[in-house]
């Protein structure tokens, strides 16, 4: 199945996966951070590598990337990207006084971030699994803090032979803590292999 030739119905399916996944993510984040987290309407787009990098704020934007592999019925990758501020907020909520800054990523903050990545990725993967009845496993997240361009090039290179297109979901979370609200955005890249994308569509009764 070709990402570039998706019709509007197929894109609506992806959008719905994005909506449900983002809703799940807000619920999980709220439990994880023990404070109310609200979410705006997520944006779901099919973009190529350059557009993804621009949407993240340019190639040299410092970001934290978490990469997970999809296994079982659906094969591919899912990548969770967040700005330093989001990482900072999550880590200070989780670790309290133990946490100083995110400039040096020590072992404890790295594993806390991996847990955040795991929760976020599972939110989207569960959305697909619930809708389609397919079984999907995710691998342990691998973490990297670097330039957005260098992080996103990893799935771009891996799938270069298959497609230049990436499913890009942008989320705006609002952490509603006592009297001050804070906005945080994160981005999810979903790259199911093309026959897996086909499986998702056919399980939902969409013709391809």
């Amino acid at each position, binding site marked *: 199945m070709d990402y570039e030739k998706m019709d509007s119905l197929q894109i609506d399916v992806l959008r719905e996966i994005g909506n449900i996944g983002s809703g799940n993510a807000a619920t999980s984040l709220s439990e994880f951070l023990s404070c109310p987290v609200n979410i705006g309407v997520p944006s779901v787009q099919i973009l190529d590598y350059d557009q993804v990098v621009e949407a993240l704020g340019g190639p040299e934007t410092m970001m934290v990337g978490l990469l997970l592999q999809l296994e079982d019925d659906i094969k591919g990758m899912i990548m969770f990207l967040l700005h330093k501020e989001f990482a900072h907020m999550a880590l200070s909520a989780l670790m309290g006084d133990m946490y100083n800054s995110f400039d040096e990523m020590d072992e404890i903050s790295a594993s806390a971030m991996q847990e955040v990545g795991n929760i976020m990725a599972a939110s989207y993967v569960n959305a697909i699994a619930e809708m389609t009845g397919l079984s999907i496993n995710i691998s342990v997240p691998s*973490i990297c803090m670097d330039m957005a361009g260098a992080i996103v090039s*990893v799935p*771009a*290179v*891996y799938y270069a032979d298959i497609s230049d297109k990436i499913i890009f979901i942008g989320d705006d979370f609002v952490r509603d803590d006592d009297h001050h609200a804070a906005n945080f955005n994160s981005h999810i890249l979903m790259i199911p292999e093309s026959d897996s994308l086909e499986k998702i569509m056919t399980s939902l009764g969409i013709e391809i």
Partner: protein
Amino acid sequence: MSKTVTVGISDLNVVKAPDTLVTYALGSCVGICMYDPVTKVAGLSHIMLPSSSLTGSDPKQTMRFANTAIPMLLKKMESAGAQRPRIKAKIAGGAQMFAATGNSAISNIGQRNVAAVKQALAALRIPIIADDTGKNYGRTLYLTAEDGVMRIKSVNRGEWTY
């Protein structure tokens, strides 16, 4: 007035002094700088993958692979007046951005890119005089045509030159 020309991913370009070439955020990709100090012709290629057995003429595809992009860059430099025996190369990138993904095709792509670049340059008898490849961080790379200096910028480790 000198200008800075950006080279995207799977892209290449050639400039003359006093201009500068830049390619942003190399991860596992490799940036290949080639320079003729006499004519001050500078070329930069940003490859994504090691090699292609494809013989198609789509330029976007040609610029994506080490084994096809490097000969194309050389040709372009020669058309701009560079002489092959004087051209030397400096290379950077080929990092492993994510450790232990459990997928060896992802973890060693940088290494395979570097090996393919070295092979392609050796086949053209272009010597490599600076090599800043591997490790685990992203690099932005500048090549100034005035002096052939390659400058590398990282987010966590500062800047340095070759």
